[in-house]
């Protein structure tokens, strides 16, 4: 990644109003999640007399069915949701990049085996497999991260492979081979840095997917377990009170929506910024 490309990202970010909004919003969420401990309330302290309050001066987002401050819980939930999203992305990017570059660089039967494997994985409805796996493993954040990571890397691997195939034909990669560079160093020094933009874009979009999956799993009660909470698990517990305390579904629901939307917008912006100049006009 060179400076020119980052300047392109900056320019694109400031040119596009939505992108800037998305970026600022994500930063706000991130800071809020990081500084959740500043909240005067304990997220897990129950107080039955305060239960199911509507948003008010003391409890900004009201309280939940156990009288816990909902704002504080949303902040702590953000930690889990964002962390799971981010960590799953890392897992997916590491696996996807490794498989993609190895497959593309070596080609031949290695490529054939790896890509058929990817296709098999992609053809299985992964959500049900996740449900199944989840049932056998100890539920928790680590399990969640690994499972989501393991089931979302295939798309990254395919994108990385096709980029590798085109970079492989560049003369600097040929030179590396001609001068006796090892395959490992050729991949890490010559191929991966040059497909980094693609990986970053795929990773950004992957965070959105991962957050959504985490929410779905947690909503089904298979993800984060009490007393910890993520936005998904909060939605799960809120569904019983949708009539009397609509705000309990509203806040985590909208937060999931906005976060996923923001990551998608950001991924789009990165794609435009990294695209070679001149190609912009041809895209619709």
């Amino acid at each position: 990644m060179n400076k020119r490309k980052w300047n392109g990202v900056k320019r694109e970010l400031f040119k596009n109003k939505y992108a800037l909004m998305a970026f600022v919003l994500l930063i706000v969420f991130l800071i809020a999640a990081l500084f959740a401990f500043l909240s005067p309330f304990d997220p897990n302290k129950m107080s039955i007399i305060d239960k199911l309050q509507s948003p008010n001066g003391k409890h900004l987002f009201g309280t939940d069915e156990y009288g816990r401050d909902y704002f504080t819980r949303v902040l702590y939930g953000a930690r889990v949701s964002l962390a799971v999203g981010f960590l799953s992305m890392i897992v997916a990017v590491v696996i996807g990049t490794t498989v993609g570059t190895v497959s593309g660089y070596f080609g031949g039967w290695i490529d054939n085996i790896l890509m058929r494997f990817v296709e098999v994985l992609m053809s299985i409805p992964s959500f049900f497999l996740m449900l199944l796996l989840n049932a056998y493993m100890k539920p928790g954040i680590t399990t969640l991260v690994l499972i989501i990571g393991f089931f979302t890397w295939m798309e990254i691997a395919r994108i990385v492979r096709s980029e590798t195939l085109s970079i492989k034909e560049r003369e600097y990669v040929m030179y590396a081979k001609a001068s006796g560079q090892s395959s490992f160093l050729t991949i890490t020094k010559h191929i991966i840095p040059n497909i980094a933009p693609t990986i970053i874009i795929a990773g950004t979009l992957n965070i959105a997917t991962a957050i959504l999956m985490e929410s779905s799993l947690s909503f089904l009660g298979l993800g984060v377990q009490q007393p910890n909470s993520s936005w998904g698990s909060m939605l799960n517990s809120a569904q019983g009170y949708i009539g009397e305390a609509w705000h309990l579904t509203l806040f985590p629901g909208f937060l999931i929506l906005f976060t996923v939307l923001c990551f998608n917008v950001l991924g789009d912006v990165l794609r435009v910024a990294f695209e070679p100049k001149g190609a912009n006009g041809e895209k619709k």
Partner: protein
Amino acid sequence: MSENLLEVKDLKKYYPVKSSSLFGKERVLKAVDGVNFSIKKGETFGLVGESGCGKSTIGRSIIRLHDITSGNIFFDGDDIASLNEKGLKKYRRRMQAVFQDPYASLNPTMNVFELISEPMKIHGNPTPAEQKDTILSLLDQVGLKKDHLYRYPHEFSGGQRQRVSIARALSVNPDFILCDEPISALDVSVQAQVVNMLEDIQEKTGVTYLFIAHDLSMVRHISNRIGVMYLGDIVEIAESDELYTEPLHPYTQALLSAIPEPDTTIAKRERIVLSGEVPSPLNAPSGCKFRTRCPHAMDICREVVPPMLAIGNGRQVACHLYDEEGKIIE
């Protein structure tokens, strides 16, 4: 006469081509179809021909960028044609390459220091200080400045990038450099700079070049001997001046007459305009591959592949027009 550094014997490189229809037969693209030539130590051997004639494939076969179909490549007496990557490693230092596209031959994410030090680190274990010393003297040799050391490729012009490529190739003191169209993408005024530099380096280090190009006048200038290729075959090999003043093969004659001459004082060569296009190498004509465009084509050309005749003074031609002495058969 000095000894050969490189000897290529009956080199063949075929590519399987999948048919576009599902059950079609797999066909074979004969990119290089049995060529023989040798390059002496300290010499520049030029390889010319039009696009698709297989000249780059030969270059890449020699530096073993890919496996070859059959044949031998003797480098300093050792056959490297069938060595694996491990066996090749010690030859990789001695054979370097400079490629055509100055915009694609340098990794855009690495600076000059990292670029040039890479081959040094593969073939040795120099300390950072040693690397820097060597690189600085190399930069000086290729006409770049000290403060270019930490710049990235996009900050350079095409000619400067090609200088970096050359410095990188020189960093491991090679015996042989493959120059695969190193000046084709450069402007006229910059081409001369690079050609002069390559000549100076050869004079100083005695390095051997295989110079692949389609710009015939530059090839003549830089090469001692030249091989002319057509559709995967070498059709003529000669000393470069001889080739230009007295081309024997009808294809060489046509190729030379097609070069536009900038010097308006020189009488124009009679232009031989070849009819038609180069046939596809997937579907090469029988006998002599050039016969479909040759103004002198005879019956024998359809049936018999012309053998490569050595007609003295290191000169070789593959054409039915000539006998063993290089005389035209009446």
